């Protein structure tokens, strides 16, 4: 009797163990074969970059997780430094693994393509509403006579997590040394006049209005007239949209500071970023205000 029960337990136990082992083996085999048969060739660099990333899947880069970001980095769509959670070491490790320059070749900065501060461009009406560009846009398109120019109500300043944008004389100006190129301001600006440009480009056309020159001249002192002087003096570095020039940021060569001297833009809307900043900062209004601020401090 005892022996009988024991043998029965033994067979059940034996069958169970063998069965489990068999099923495990079979499943492992199937998965192995299927993985071989249905192998998808993926770029091994994607996996490499993914392993270097923080893998927190925070979505801060605007992509669906770290793997997706790695894919975009390998494809060259975004720079490794676009990951807000990565330290500088991580970024340079990724750049090194991919054989690209960490920041110089890819870094982008934002630039507000408008030179019409409150003294240069007229307002066609008064605006007493909430001081926010998007609110102002909702009411007859805002108070500025130029319907493409900067409204100067600091929506982008509030959007910038790095404090890189400042309103000077009613005009938003990006301090490019603080800008990391996250693009938050680009998404915020209701007039779509902030652009991410390669950090290497120093010269920009500070006008975003595609209308004809004489029409712009009526309300703005510093519009792009569409005279094509820049294109003639520095061919291949500009392109035209409507009647205004844009620096061709995709071109191999970007306009240099020397080009500025030969072009001599008649309305001074083609400027280097430094000049643009200097013009606004040296404006008497601004100087008065900042000295008053310094005194009060």
């Amino acid at each position, binding site marked *: 009797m005892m022996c009988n029960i024991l043998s029965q337990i033994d067979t059940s136990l034996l069958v169970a163990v063998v*069965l*489990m082992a068999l*099923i495990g083996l079979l499943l492992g085999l199937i998965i192995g074969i299927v993985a071989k048969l*249905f192998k998808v060739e993926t770029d091994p660099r994607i996996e490499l970059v993914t392993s270097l990333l923080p893998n927190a899947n925070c979505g801060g880069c605007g992509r669906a997780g770290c793997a997706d970001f790695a894919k975009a980095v390998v494809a060259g769509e975004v720079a490794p430094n676009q990951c807000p959670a990565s330290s500088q070491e991580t970024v340079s490790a990724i750049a090194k693994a991919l054989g690209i320059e960490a920041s110089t070749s890819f870094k982008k900065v934002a630039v507000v393509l408008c030179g019409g501060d409150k003294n240069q461009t007229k307002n066609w009406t008064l605006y007493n509403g909430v001081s926010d560009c998007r609110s102002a846009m909702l009411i007859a398109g805002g108070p500025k006579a130029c319907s493409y120019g900067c409204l100067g109500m600091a929506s982008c300043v509030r959007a910038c997590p790095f404090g890189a944008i400042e309103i000077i004389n009613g005009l938003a100006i990006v301090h490019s040394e603080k800008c990391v190129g996250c693009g938050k301001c680009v998404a915020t600006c209701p007039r779509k006049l902030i652009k991410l440009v390669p950090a290497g480009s120093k010269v920009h056309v500070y006008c975003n209005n595609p209308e004809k020159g004489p029409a712009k001249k009526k309300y703005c002192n510093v519009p792009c007239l569409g005279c094509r002087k820049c294109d003639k003096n520095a061919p291949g570095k500009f392109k035209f949209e409507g009647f205004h020039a844009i620096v061709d940021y995709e071109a191999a060569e970007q306009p240099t500071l020397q080009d500025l001297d030969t072009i001599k833009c008649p309305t001074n809307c083609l400027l280097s970023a430094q000049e643009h900043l200097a013009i606004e900062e040296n404006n008497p209004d601004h100087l008065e205000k900042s000295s008053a601020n310094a005194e009060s401090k």
Partner: protein
Amino acid sequence: MTENYLELTIGAVFVYNFVLTRFLGICPFLGVSKKIETALGMAGAVVFVMTLASFCTSVIYHYLLHNEALAAKGINLGFLQLIIFILIIAGLVQVVEIILQKLSPKLYSALGIYLPLITTNCAVLGVATINANVGRAVLPSTVFAFFSGLGFGLALLMFASLREKLDLAEVPKVFQGMAIALITAGILAMAFMGFAGLC
């Protein structure tokens, strides 16, 4: 054995809803219900995996675990049910994921991230276990699993759309976030209790 298909279909979706009546699969119900889009993806993946897994497990159940030839020899493998089900489901999802990635990258990118999430989801295992406990045949089991998946999807979708509305609502500070989500889930569950006794 004749099956009441009304119970297997309408019953699975409303009366015995997996999330709201049986309280299985609460984790994805709370986790992936912030956006309707992701909820839809998850629901699709669950329907798919549930149906497939139930089919396989009920085949295993009937032809291996409760094999009459084996039982006649005094070998009863019923006690292996749980562990074999888990193994089968996990392996199956893995295989499906690999095949999907190759054959339909589009479907993979839509379901892909959710598939590993439900490998060992209790709702998927729950369907298989319920089917086994009742002793359902293969076809009714598969039908039941498919409609249970639909029921899960319905609950998830309803909850996700409620949560999207909640994001815009003014919620008292103490209830903000997960608290109000849990209260909402509770009310939803109470509403579904109203179907009890329908079939």
